[in-house]
């Protein structure tokens, strides 16, 4: 069982600088070749003016705090038995090359169901203008007991 006292523990702020080629690399890895993710000349003719990141790129810039939580030496989660159970992303604006994202997050919940332990991370990512970019909520399941 994971100690419930960790609910509310915070992570960050964590900075992520968005690179043009990294945005393209992510979209390509997700089999998404649409020009708005890859082609500047095309993007210039749209309202965006430059390429935008695939929304799911939030997996890279908005879950770094979740990684910190999973490896937190105080909580000591049993990673060998851990699976990603559910994920939620909510987007408020698009991400463009050279954006500087700042993520802050927290342990939002810890609970048990049978011999499964659940730990939930919630994060918020803002850009260099202070605009909210993405809210994320990740639920991890530890089979057969929470900590090492």
């Amino acid at each position, binding site marked *: 069982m994971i100690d419930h006292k960790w609910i509310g523990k915070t992570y960050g702020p964590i900075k992520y600088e968005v690179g043009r080629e990294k945005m393209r690399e*992510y979209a390509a890895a*997700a089999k998404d070749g649409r020009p708005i*993710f890859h082609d500047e000349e095309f993007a210039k003719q749209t309202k965006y003016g430059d390429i935008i990141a695939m929304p799911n790129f939030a997996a890279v810039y908005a879950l770094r705090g979740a990684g910190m939580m999973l490896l937190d030496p105080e909580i000591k989660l049993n990673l060998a038995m851990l699976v990603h159970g559910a994920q939620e992303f909510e987007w408020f604006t698009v991400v463009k090359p050279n954006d500087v994202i700042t993520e802050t997050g927290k342990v939002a919940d810890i609970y048990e169901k049978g011999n499964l332990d659940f730990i939930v991370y919630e994060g918020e990512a803002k850009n260099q203008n202070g605009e909210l970019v993405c809210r994320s909520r990740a639920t991890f399941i530890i089979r057969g007991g929470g900590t090492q």
Partner: protein
Amino acid sequence: MIELCNLKYEDVQVGQEIPTFTHQFDRMDAIVYAGASGDFNPIHTNPYFAKEVAMLPDVIAHGLFNMALLGKTVMDWVGDPGCLKKLSCQFRGMVIPGDKVIFKGRVREKLEGNLVVLDVWAEKEDGSDVLKGGEAVVWLP
């Protein structure tokens, strides 16, 4: 000016299914996704580790890779990625090399403010769950 959005709010019907996307998972997909996402957990990339240490049938696809393909499926329907406001799902079945996964969606509800809510999910050819209980929210002009 190029308009990316393919749809109008008024043209969308509750119950309408969106075009499906099918992908046959290859072990190279997971290696490429590991590099792109930074998630180098060896259960996705190293068959020896996956089988002998983690006791899995083979390497498995990243859940977030499957979720990205689900996002792509919704964006292919809408056209403008900026219209995707929310995406969620539960990671259920493991996907191993050779598995064909079908990504699907159906309009559940139209809300005020030009928002459309879809049920979205992914399943294998035999109908078993890969991504379950998913929801997408899109804004349409």
